[in-house]
């Protein structure tokens, strides 16, 4: 379970002064459900997810993941989280197996457990053919699978995906969306960010729309449709975001 409590994150910029990238964001994600964070570029999605994954530290407010506070116990939080984004690359000089092993060991798995989990994951994701190939020699699809294996090796109860399908072709993107569903079916708490409406419609149990660092509205797809009297998610999104939208150039 994820509980964001009035999360805030501001950055200092020489030209623009203080930027509030995340501004008092609160929400709850339940186990066995997918929470979708929908927003335009620069809306604050990535920063929010980085705060949850304790890659960044909040300037105010906090979040509790599996009972651990992101400020007080960041290492324990990370041990319960699998984090995947387009920015989380693989080590080019390690093989796929070494990459996954490294993260298993960092997560405190002992060698027999690690070996068992590794075999299971590599079989499950059909990765045995390129197990010993270096990551810089892998195709995009193979890299994506290795990344998935890396996030899964310690069997975390929480999965965080930051625009996981960005820049991928349809076939690879589908592997990812299928994987996200599997995580939910396995009872994990899943949160992911995107700006692709169709992904949200297909996957999410709860949708949160974020703009300028603020969570503007939240609910199931049905609730949002009823609330705004629109069927099309894109129309709903535009209606919610328009009053707050400042194009990136003028910001």
């Amino acid at each position, binding site marked *: 379970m994820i509980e964001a409590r009035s999360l805030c994150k501001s950055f*200092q910029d020489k030209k623009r002064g203080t930027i509030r990238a995340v501004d008092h964001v609160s929400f709850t994600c339940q186990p066995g459900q997918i929470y979708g964070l929908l927003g335009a570029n620069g809306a604050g999605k990535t920063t929010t997810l*980085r705060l949850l*994954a304790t*890659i*960044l*530290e909040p300037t105010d407010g906090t979040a509790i993941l599996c009972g651990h506070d992101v400020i007080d116990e960041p*290492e*324990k939080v*990370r*041990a319960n*989280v699998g*984090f995947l*984004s387009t*920015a*989380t*690359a*693989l*080590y*080019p*000089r*390690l093989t796929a197996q*070494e990459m996954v092993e*490294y*993260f298993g*060991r*960092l*997560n*405190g798995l002992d060698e027999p457990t690690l070996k068992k989990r590794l075999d299971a994951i590599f079989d499950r994701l059909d990765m045995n053919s390129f197990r010993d190939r*270096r990551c810089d020699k892998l195709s995009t699809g193979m890299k994506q699978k290795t990344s998935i294996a*890396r996030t899964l090796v310690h069997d975390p109860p929480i999965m965080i995906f930051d625009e996981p399908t960005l820049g991928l072709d349809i076939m690879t993107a589908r592997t990812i969306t299928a994987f996200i569903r599997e995580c939910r079916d396995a009872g994990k708490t899943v949160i992911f960010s995107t700006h692709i409406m169709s992904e949200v419609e297909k996957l999410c149990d709860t949708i949160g729309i974020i703009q300028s660092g603020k969570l503007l509205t939240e609910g199931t797809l049905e609730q949002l449709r009823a609330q705004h009297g629109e069927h099309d998610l894109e129309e709903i999104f535009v209606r919610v975001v328009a009053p707050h939208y400042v194009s990136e150039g003028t910001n």
Partner: protein
Amino acid sequence: MSLHSIGIVYRKELTEALRDRRTLISTIIVPLLLFPVMIVGFASVASTLVDKAKEESPKVMILGGDDSPAVLGEVKKIEKIDIVPPTSDWKDQIVNKEVRAVVDIPHGFDSAIAQQQQETVKIYTYEGELKSGIAAGRIEKHLDEYRDTVVKDRLAAKNLPAAVLKPFEVKQQNVAPPEKVGGAAIGGLIGYMVILLCFTGAMYPAMDLTAGEKERGTMETILSSPVSRSDLVLGKFSLVLSASLATAALSVISMGVSFWAAQRFNALNFGNPNDPNTLHIQIGLSAVLSVFLMAIPIAVLFSAALLTISLFAKTYKEAQSYLTPMTFVVVIPAVAAMLPGVDLTPKLALVPILSVSLLCKELVASTYHWHYISIIFASTCVYAAAALFIAIKMFQRESVLFRS
């Protein structure tokens, strides 16, 4: 802090470093090849060039002397010079290296000498040019001998003994043991090399493990793992330190082997050890070990500092542009220690790098000033600890890790 996670990070970084060509070249290949090539190669090339120049008979021109057959005859007797007829453009010929030296015998030289007047023979040369120097040296040596015979004849004519002109002799004699003589001569060089290679050995891994990680997009990946940031930086630091020490160790070993081989095959013209005029280099194992021991805190200092600086960079290239000027910061104090007359003082013992470089000079000469050794070791350890502390602090800062 957990040694276990530091070890996991270290092992992974080691695996990657051993697969990185740039790191391998700077840590293993360069130190192993540098010294043999430098010492044996350079020395043997230089000595063959010098030998060849000595074998040749340089062209020499004589101006004047038509009325002074005695001195002219002496000049013509000089071995291994090739006398060419005088021309008016002799200056240009020297500059163009067509003639190596010109002997100018003043008018009426012989008769002036006979009347016991002082005269000057001029030798025109191309200063700093090897063959010109050899030619002038041969001429000067022979004319010196001729002058001595003139003096002897004059003394004999007046029935005076030769000792009238030389009432006593002055002679230098070395009493320092050979290893101390060698130490003074190349001790500074060894310290300088070890310090510089500690630095270059740490440079590539430091960039690869920080800026390289940002550039390849793996920084966010590793930060999402449960390893604490201080364990992460300590693991990375240990690898950089290993690379730095490995470079220094390999270079010292390769330097030792090269010197041994050079002496053995006489490539350096060291001559035989009983000849007091040749440099006899002897460096004890204990001296080398103590230099290496002093290199440890300086390697810690370099590793931590390089890690911190390159962490600011977003790309490998940017890191390179930060670290290249750093090389001068290291080279200048290291070279300063090689200057003659720069010796350890209590103040200099507190200057990082320079102090270690000066100490290495003494250690190689088997001089152990224990109070300096302890001051320098302790002060370098303090600087190293401060640098490591800053590195750990920088790894906690989002503005550094995610600089955009």
